[in-house]
């Protein structure tokens, strides 16, 4: 696709012998670095708080290291050509998340979340290994797209049967573990969207009405997908989980655009988004309040009621400045409720500063970029759309929650991928990374040095 690529294509037979480097050594080196960085963070917390290296440091490092090693071995066996970056990024973000949660546990001795999170991380890596080992080709998923969508809808509907937690019906509690089924639904929906759009992209892009320079599709093609989308968003509004509905919406629009190249989709998407936001903001006092908080984060202070969570979050970020207070030395616990989940980024912002926050955002950006790159490299549309969808899930999710806690957009409850407390989220994100590994392996192993006809 590039000049260099054209040159390769023009070159005679010997180019066929060229094999892409596997780069598993790079991956291993980066994994060691990621584990060491996480252990260093863990030790830094202990040193700052008590002046001693915390006793669990060795166990923590060993645990994370073993998880990373198993994942690496699985990749070596079944995905030797995979991109070497996603796995170390996942390990580093997950390790850093554990450090931040452990650090916040010190402030709430009665409520320790890090051990649970470690269990969930193990499950997540287990799922990663399972996916890498079992799923030999991502295209298999295309066959199960309708199974995926049914499963996604069931998962989304399931929490309605359970009592609401903190005003949102998105959790189900089983044996002491709370599970957020909507998280798993994200991946399933991405698979469905990718499969459906891959199958129908010509119909979607070539038919329909043209208005000015925008081309709109016909209702016949649009029907099914819009129905699914409306259904999932409707369910989410019922469950009051606006972050996830925003995420689904964004995912839907991005994939439609990529599949068809119709700018009309963007226009339709924006119009729908504005209408939806307006309607929900009007009808739902819960959402209206969030928008008020976003516009006037210090209104409660001026009213003499003390700072609300968003104001406390802004204070935490501001206290961090450029270099941060250092791990274990901030006071982000002032945020109160949801410090370890929705507001985990505030702890990172306060204790690691803008420098650390930028590093974290760049890690996410790198992960997203690797996903897009894998999508670019594939030839078949399903894989491309799936890679783009999974990468976009990460990007949109980071934007929605990080933008929320820093006051860029209205706050919606959502988990920071890998960092935040929340088992379902960690497991889901490991599944995303596993799929990206699988897709990038396909992309790179298919490379034969010859441009396809």
């Amino acid at each position, binding site marked *: *696709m590039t000049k260099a690529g054209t040159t390769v294509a023009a070159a005679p037979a010997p180019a066929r012998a060229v094999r892409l480097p596997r780069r598993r050594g790079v991956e291993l080196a980066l994994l060691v670095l990621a584990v060491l960085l996480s252990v260093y963070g863990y030790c830094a917390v202990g040193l700052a708080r008590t002046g001693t290296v915390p006793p669990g440091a060795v166990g923590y490092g060993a645990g994370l290291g073993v998880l990373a090693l198993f994942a690496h071995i699985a990749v070596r066996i079944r995905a030797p050509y995979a991109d070497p970056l996603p796995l170390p990024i996942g390990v580093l973000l997950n390790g850093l998340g554990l450090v931040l949660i452990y650090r916040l546990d010190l402030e709430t001795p009665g409520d320790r979340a890090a051990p649970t999170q470690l269990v969930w991380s193990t499950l997540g890596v287990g799922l990663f290994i399972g996916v890498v080992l079992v799923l030999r080709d991502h295209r298999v998923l295309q066959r199960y797209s309708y199974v995926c969508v049914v499963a996604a809808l069931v998962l989304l509907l399931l929490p309605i049967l359970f009592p609401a937690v903190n005003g949102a019906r998105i959790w189900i509690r089983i044996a002491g573990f709370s599970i957020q089924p909507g998280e798993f639904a994200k991946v399933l929906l991405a698979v469905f969207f990718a499969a459906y759009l891959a199958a129908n992209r010509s119909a979607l892009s070539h038919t329909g009405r043209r208005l000015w320079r925008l081309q709109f599709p016909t209702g016949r093609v649009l029907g099914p997908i819009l129905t699914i989308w409306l259904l999932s968003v409707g369910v989410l509004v019922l469950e009051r989980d606006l972050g996830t509905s925003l995420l689904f919406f964004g995912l839907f629009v991005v994939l439609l655009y990529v599949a068809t190249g119709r700018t009309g989709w963007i226009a339709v998407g924006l119009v729908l988004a504005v209408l939806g936001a307006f309607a929900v903001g009007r009808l739902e006092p819960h959402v209206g309040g969030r928008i008020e908080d976003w516009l006037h984060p210090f209104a409660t202070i001026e009213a003499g009621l003390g700072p609300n969570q968003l104001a406390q979050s802004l*204070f935490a970020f501001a206290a961090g400045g*450029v270099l941060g207070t250092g791990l274990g030395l901030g006071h982000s616990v002032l945020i109160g409720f949801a410090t370890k989940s929705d507001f985990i980024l505030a702890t990172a912002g306060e204790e690691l500063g803008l420098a650390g926050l930028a590093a974290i955002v760049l890690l996410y950006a790198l992960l997203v970029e690797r996903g897009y790159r894998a999508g670019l490299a594939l030839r078949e549309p399903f894989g491309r759309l799936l890679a783009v969808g999974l990468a976009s899930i990460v990007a949109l999710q980071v*934007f929605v929650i990080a933008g929320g806690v*820093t*006051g860029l957009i209205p706050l919606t409850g959502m988990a920071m991928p890998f960092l935040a407390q929340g088992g379902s989220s960690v497991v889901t994100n490991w599944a995303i990374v596993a799929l990206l590994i699988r897709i990038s392996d396909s992309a790179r192993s298919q490379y034969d040095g010859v441009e396809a006809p």
Partner: protein
Amino acid sequence: MTEDDGRQAPVSERNRGTVTECDDQEAVTEYGGLPDSGRPMARYIRHACVFCALLLAALLVNATRVQVVRSREYDANPANRRAAIARYEQPRGDILVGDEPVTGSMDTGEQLRHERTYRNGPLYAPVTGFASQTYGTTFLEHSEDALLSGTDPVLSPLPLWNDVTRTRNRGGDVVTTLNRQAQEAAYRGLAGRKGAVAAIEPATGRVLALVTSPSYDPAELSGNSEAVESAWARLNHDPEKPMLNRAVRQTYPPGSTFKVVTAAAALDAGVVTDLDERTDSPDPYRLPGTTTRLTNEGDGCANASVRDAFEWSCNTVFAKLGVDVGVQAMTDTAQAFGFNDTGLRIPFAVSPSTFDTRVDKAQLALSSIGQYNTRATPLQMAMVAATVADGGVLHTPYLVERTTRHGGETVAGSGVRPGRQVMRPSTAARLKELMAGVVRDGTGTRAGIRGALVGGKTGTAQHGVGNTGVPYAWFVSWAQTEDALEPQVAVAVVVEDASGDRGEISGGGNAAPIAKDVMRAVLGV
């Protein structure tokens, strides 16, 4: 480029189009160049990728806004608890009397971690003030707060060091000039009666004792619990006003003790040249321009000499003397002693003592005997006695001997403070003579100390509507051991609800014994 270009162009065109668009060299090395089988989806993938990159870039721009641009504003928001948490994170520095700290810190384990404690709180309350997590700080706790809490940059080992490490120094200590024995003697002497004592070392201005009574325990206000709030309400509504620092923040009519100032003005102005010469002063004295007749408590004041009039505290003589000296000279002398000075800090602010400069002769006559609008803090009257004792030189009083880092290394000393000549040395010498006479055989005999030279002046100040209030008993004095070159201590005592006769006797009777105990404590005899 519209989407139509790609769709309608031939395949070769399309590929070339994507080639020029794609500047991604790495894609080739990693994945190889792969053509698109149908529409150029790669382009749309790139657009979507740019969109995601923009989202993440927006996050970083916004994070910079919050963490850098508006950081200071958010840090300074009063609802942000971080400043308070940092302030109480470490133990506060101590205030020392001699080598002994009179304060401490208690680790509560709460969010605002350290709370102030006080040893002998009521005794030192007028000096330390309180350091409350709820109500702020007062007195030394307030004026030395930066040092005690550790924010003072002089505490850092290197300039800007703390800005780099983002740490706070351990709070420094404040060593006071107080004399423990004098302070205790004064507090014991007042014995819960309303009043105050101030004692100064005349040669330097060091404050040796600063006592107010009744007092309170500042430890009650240290924390942030509801008990602190109720203590605050109780102390503020207490009619005895235990939180009022009477030694420096309450002014009283100084009454006859002000005659020291009047005498100094008269001697300096040359109105009086011979202390033993009979003055031309009638008894009773009709205030100029009025029909009001000023009388004395005792007899023998008509035409009495200045020495007799001082020893027996004749109002008529000194009222006339003030009028003879005139407003200008009286004002000059009073202000040289520190009256009307609004800027005195020791290092906390002292309420200004007043001498009215816009008076007619009748008012001047009353002002000259410490009535009308003449008002003084006990500290101000101690300064008057100290100035006489130090040959007419006034040393501005101060309470902080030195400040140290945690561990004792001196940060700043009090330094040498030059005095101010208030009156001629000869005038001071003659005033010393007069004051010694008061204690030897005048109204202040109860302040006499065996083995020491003591000079003093009693006062009984009337106040209230029609002078119906219980008079204030005053005594100002200085003392030196017989072998000393100059007095080592000057004291002013005021007792508000002085019992006994409404006469000079209460100044000598109620206040003088307290002054005596304080002076003995300083002299060690």
